[in-house]
């Protein structure tokens, strides 16, 4: 309903002239998700990280396509198989103190000690066994084992000043006292749930951003966000609601910027039990003596029955691309020979019959209704598509807060989830989603289907100790290929990220979903 109203509101204003522009140096923008803290080591959450990126820098940054580029580290190299050496830029913190290797060492040491963190950045520093400050501009990080992904992991870690005290508290960042980074903007004020006020850091070591002052507002309501753009209150909004995209595209005062994201939306099928899950029964509700989802042919049939292009076009309003693996084309370790599965109901029915279910099955398909773009609508469409091949599907949706508990406990037979591969390469989803669930190794933490394939586990182990990028890519691609052939999960589509700006601005859309206002510039 919300979206209908939003479209209505937008349609009614289409006849108006130019949006007013504020003074050339000031800009107001609106993002959909508020931050939970200004402490850059408190909570691993994209809304936080994109806001922190204005105040703080990382050793390694990523470009809009999620490839690594130098950040506070000008360069890095392996000096021996378990030692990385980072050469640092010359930069200064907002309080005027120079940035040195001490600050890196301090940040890495602080991360695991942050109190009450609901999602710690320690997952990105856990591979580090020792830190050696060689000189103020050089630091060496030793890893426990050969670990080629260290620069990738450090691409998530912000550097704070080593003058922040022995145990800096999250509250002191929120109050602004410690929110001192090396980033392109300084903090003026933070009003929780409302906005950040930022001013340009004129002594920034990188390029000079266009705006002297940013009002960085949080407007979670989709319709209100669109209205704020159209009324000229803000010059940029992120997460443009899919229902508004078509109308905004035709509005001459607005420009849309989109890119395919690293977020895959997929289905998982319960493989955790050999007996049939309660939610899977024969065509007339009769109990089955084994779990049909463990049969590859059934999984293939369920995947082939899905008309991905139709979902992308009708449900997602083209704000996605059909997908057959974890990452979009062009990414590191994208396997070119794994296309999106075709839509083939005849073959799907034949496979079901081969697996011993000529009359189909009954199954429940679950989803959240507030987490991913159009999540509830996607499962409703898939429910119909499955029913068409004889798999009578009962669709059930609920809020993420109760949903996630159930899928973590293997309560559901079939369920929809999304995964953003923040590192932009396949070892990340392979390790978390596909690897055998193993708490001691920290593998398969969100392998909620409890899929297990020793061959893939072996490939992951091998990839994680392969330093050569080209060789590692080949191993990862083989892992992707095996997982998809075995239908370890059913990939649906990669979401697109969409931003809308005033027509007189240019913006650089990012695959990692982060909104960077320093990438927003007046059009020449």
């Amino acid at each position, binding site marked *: 309903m*919300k979206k209908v*109203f*939003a479209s*209505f*509101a937008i349609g*009614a*204003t289409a006849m*108006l002239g130019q949006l*007013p522009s504020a003074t050339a140096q000031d800009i107001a923008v*609106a993002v959909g998700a508020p931050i*939970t*803290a200004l*402490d850059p080591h*408190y*909570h*691993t*959450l994209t809304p936080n990280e994109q806001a922190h990126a204005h105040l703080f820098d990382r050793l390694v940054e990523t470009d809009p396509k999620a490839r690594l580029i130098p950040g506070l580290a000008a360069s890095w190299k392996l000096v021996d198989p378990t030692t990385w050496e980072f050469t640092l830029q010359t930069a200064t913190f907002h309080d005027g103190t120079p940035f040195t290797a001490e600050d890196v060492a301090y940040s890495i040491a602080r991360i695991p000690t942050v*109190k*009450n*963190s*609901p*999602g*710690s950045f*320690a*997952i990105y520093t856990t591979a580090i066994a020792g830190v050696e400050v060689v000189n103020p501009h050089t630091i060496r990080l030793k890893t426990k084992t050969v670990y080629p992904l260290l620069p990738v992991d450090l691409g998530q870690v912000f550097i704070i000043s080593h003058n922040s005290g022995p145990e800096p508290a*999250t*509250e002191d960042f*929120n109050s602004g006292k410690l929110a001192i980074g090396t980033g392109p903007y300084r903090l003026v004020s933070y009003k*929780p*749930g*409302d*906005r950040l006020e930022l001013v340009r850091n004129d002594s920034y070591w990188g390029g000079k951003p266009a705006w002297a002052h940013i009002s960085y*507002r*949080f*407007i*979670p*309501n989709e*319709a*209100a966000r669109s*209205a*704020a753009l*159209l*009324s000229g*209150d803000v010059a940029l909004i992120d997460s443009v609601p899919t229902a508004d995209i078509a109308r905004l595209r035709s509005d001459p005062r607005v420009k849309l910027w989109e890119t395919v994201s690293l977020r895959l939306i997929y289905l998982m099928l319960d493989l955790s039990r050999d007996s049939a899950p309660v939610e899977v029964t024969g065509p007339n509700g009769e109990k089955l003596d084994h779990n049909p989802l463990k049969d590859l042919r059934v999984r293939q049939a369920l995947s082939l029955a899905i008309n991905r292009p139709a979902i992308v076009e009708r449900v997602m309003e083209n704000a996605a691309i059909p997908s057959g693996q974890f990452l979009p084309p062009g990414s590191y370790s994208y396997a070119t020979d794994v296309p999106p599965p075709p839509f083939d109901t005849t073959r799907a029915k034949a496979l079901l019959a081969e697996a011993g279910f000529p009359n189909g099955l009954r199954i429940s398909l679950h989803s959240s209704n*507030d987490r991913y773009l159009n999540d509830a609508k996607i499962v409703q469409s898939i429910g119909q598509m499955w029913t068409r091949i004889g798999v009578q599907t009962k669709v059930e949706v609920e*809020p*993420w*807060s*109760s949903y*996630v*508990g*159930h899928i*973590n406990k293997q309560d559901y037979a079939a369920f929809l989830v999304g*995964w953003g591969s*923040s590192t932009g390469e396949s070892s990340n989803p392979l390790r*978390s989603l596909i690897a055998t669930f193993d*708490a001691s190794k*920290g593998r398969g*933490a*969100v392998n909620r289907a409890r899929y297990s394939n020793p061959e893939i586990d072996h490939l992951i182990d091998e990839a994680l100790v392969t330093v050569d990028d080209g060789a590692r890519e080949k191993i990862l691609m083989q892992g992707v290929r095996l997982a998809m052939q075995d239908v370890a999960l059913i990939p649906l589509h990669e979401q697109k990220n969409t931003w809308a700006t005033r027509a007189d601005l240019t913006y650089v859309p990012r695959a990692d979903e982060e909104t960077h206002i320093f990438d927003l510039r007046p059009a020449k």
Partner: protein
Amino acid sequence: MALWLLRRLVQAGFVMLAMSAIVFIGLHAIGNPIDILISPEADQAERARAIAALGLDKPLWEQYWLFLQGALHGDLGRSFVFNEPALRLIAGRMPATLELAVTAVLLSVCIGLPLGLYAGLHPNSFTGRLVMTGSIFGFSLPSFWVGLMLIMVFAVTLGWLPSSGRGETISIAGVGWSFLTVDGWRHLLLPALNLALFNISLVLRLTRAGVRETLPLDYIRFARAKGLTPGRVIYVHVLRNILIPVVTVIGLEFGSTIAFSVVTESVFAWPGMGKLIIDSINVLDRPVIVAYLMITVALFVTINLVVDLLYTLLDPRVRLGGRR
């Protein structure tokens, strides 16, 4: 009177106790906040660490016991999400909600009462009927939609008022208030009107019904027969007698306006408590939810107290804590 007050306070204490227990059990049944808050990339060890860090690994009765101990010392716990004391978090958002709610209630009285009076005195006039018909829209249109329409008309099309957010604030005693600045009022007007719309209609209809009921009564006729001016009859005799239900409703509505202004707050991106509570429910941020509901209970108890006291002023027959 003192006994009556004491009884009220004890009652309120029990309500809070029961409410907090229900919230603890209810949220525990829904799920684990760590599942929602934690990075999906976290491994099993990190998940266990986060659960322990928030004290969620302890049995529920122990968590509740720790909460009660803290509550007795005025500490309702720290938010799982923001890592700040829940009370401070709510207090930080409260001024925004309070100024919105007070403005809305003032608007509903200032608009609803005169219009209701007019419609009651001239039930068959064109304007009277128009007012009554208009009031149907006031309480039947969803405030979500009305909010968007207000934004569309006054912000997007006419460009007179900003579409959302809170304006400039002036700090008094460490708390920022926006009703002291022009910019603040420009931001306040639309959300307050949106929030008030339902209450305007409610007050209007109550007033009209009261007037229609009171006018034919003997004492009014007598007052007229006595030769009192129409003004005195209406403003003293009629109005005072119909105010009891109106005050009751305004009191209750003031409470719900503060506690449940969430729709208006989200449509207008107003950084108040309503948005905080909805966000907190979505991530099962128990300390904030409990603290918020406790404050809400306290608020309703206080408002009811004030309403009861107002009764005694309006109607001398009402005695607090009197013999039953």
